[in-house]
């Protein structure tokens, strides 16, 4: 069974079409990434898939149930880590899990024995009695992850789970997500951190202006859409250098004060930089971020 499949999804708010014909198919046990700049329609797509809002067109199947008609039934086996924490500030850490479990119809006597392992998983062992407002941002995120697991879901939606976290906290969340896929759970992740997507996702869809504009594994996306090598250059005289190398690179782009030169063979480019003490440069393999910027453009998004 395909845990999540959507065809021809459309959704408008007023005059604005936010989702304009999205097709998705998430395979069991994979971590599927939905990438896109702010306002691309990622969160709306997730809310449609959860049955929280009705699509204007298209159909959705979540864990075999038609959504939104049987979204309630589907959601009994789904967990959600929302973009913004909405832990219950009136309760302690452990009470948050108990109370949340009740919404799934899980009796406290069934949740109680699971609280310690869940807190352990979230790196919050021994913090069960702590108040929510005493937790750091990273701890709140981890508790939200633990909360999403109270009903032992088959599929988890994670909406920008590491936005605003420090690197330590981010790595811990990543490690836990990998553990969840190893346990056989299916993960659907939205993010605009390319590193996160590249590390975690087996397959990705890049979304912009309500449409999916590319889909595939991180490696395939890089291979299909971009030259394998990049030289980033900045410093005095970078404009002159850019003009000189236009014929040596497959593609040259300037963002801010940095020039990006893409090519399959960068040796000729690097030779032009020898002895240029004013120019600082970095030679690296092309990454998902280069693909993302090429596909979605370099304009600032709000």
């Amino acid at each position, binding site marked *: 069974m395909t845990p999540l499949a959507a065809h021809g999804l459309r959704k408008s708010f007023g005059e604005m079409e936010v989702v304009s014909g999205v097709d998705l198919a998430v395979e069991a046990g994979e971590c599927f990434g939905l990438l896109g700049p702010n306002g691309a329609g990622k969160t709306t797509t997730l809310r449609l898939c959860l049955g929280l809002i009705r699509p204007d067109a298209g159909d959705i199947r979540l864990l075999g149930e038609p959504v939104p008609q049987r979204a309630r039934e589907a959601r009994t086996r789904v967990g959600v880590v929302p973009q913004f924490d*909405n832990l219950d500030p009136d309760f302690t850490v452990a009470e948050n899990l108990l109370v949340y479990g009740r919404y799934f119809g899980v009796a406290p006597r069934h949740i109680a024995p699971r609280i310690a392992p869940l807190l352990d998983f979230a790196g919050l062992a021994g913090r069960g009695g702590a108040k929510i407002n005493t937790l750091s941002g990273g701890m709140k995120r981890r508790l939200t992850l633990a909360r999403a697991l109270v009903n032992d879901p088959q599929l988890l939606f994670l909406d920008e789970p590491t936005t605003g976290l420090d690197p330590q906290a981010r790595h811990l969340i990543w490690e836990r997500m990998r553990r969840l896929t190893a346990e056989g759970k299916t993960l659907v992740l939205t993010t605009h951190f390319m590193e996160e997507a590249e590390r975690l996702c087996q397959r990705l869809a890049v979304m912009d202006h309500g449409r999916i504009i590319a889909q595939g594994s991180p490696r395939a996306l890089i291979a299909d859409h971009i030259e394998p090598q990049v030289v980033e250059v900045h410093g005095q005289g970078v404009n002159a250098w850019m003009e000189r190398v236009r014929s040596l690179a497959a593609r040259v782009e300037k963002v801010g004060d940095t020039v990006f030169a893409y090519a399959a063979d960068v040796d000729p480019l690097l030779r032009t930089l020898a002895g240029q003490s004013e120019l600082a440069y970095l030679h690296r393999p092309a990454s998902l971020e280069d693909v993302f910027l090429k596909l979605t453009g370099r304009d600032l998004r709000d």
Partner: protein
Amino acid sequence: MRWVAVWRRNFLVWRKLLAASVLTNLADPLIMLFGLGYGLGALMPPVEGMSYITFFAAGQLCTATMYTASFESMFSGFSRMHGQKTWDGILYAPLVIDDIVAGEILWAASKAWLTGSTILGVVLVFGLASSPLVLLALPAAFLVGLAFSAVGLIMTVLARNWDFFSFYMTLLMTPMMMISGVFFPAEQLPAPLVAVAKALPLYHGVALVRPTLSGQLPQDAWIHVAVLAGYSALGYVLAIRFARKRFSE
């Protein structure tokens, strides 16, 4: 019955903050009751055949119930919906907005009922009423709580900010309290005001509770019950309709 989980969530929070919550819900109305009842009441002849404090106790029981229901459904409800985003979290579970609306209304009504019944307990302890008929004030108080919780929740799901509630409280609730027979018999007001009072729920709550304190059955009880039940039902339906709209955006 999924609303029970929502009701229970609020109940558990209430239990944690029991002392403060009970104090704030009861101190004000009881101070008013004894201050005005004994102070002002000493200067007054019996009203409708009962001492002024007993007369006023019936009004105060309903008013305090109304205020508890309104504060809980509006201020606390809005804080859960808008400030803490508690409702958003609940909606990821197999609950829908209708369950939350039902749970919130029934919770606010329960809390209001507790205020009303505690005041009734005080009334009995102070010997202001003695007939077993006063027990009929218990279901009446629940109906008053239900009507104002349902109407309050409409305000909550329509509100964009906290100021919204001030209009409702100042422009609607306060004048209603003045014309609904809480402090003096409503019938001594000009006829148009009496008609307005009879179109609003508080009047009917008072009309149900007051006779029971002097050991009588309320007259035309079914009309009063019907008005309160009508406000509850209509409030519930509208609150759900507006909440669905708000949460589909």
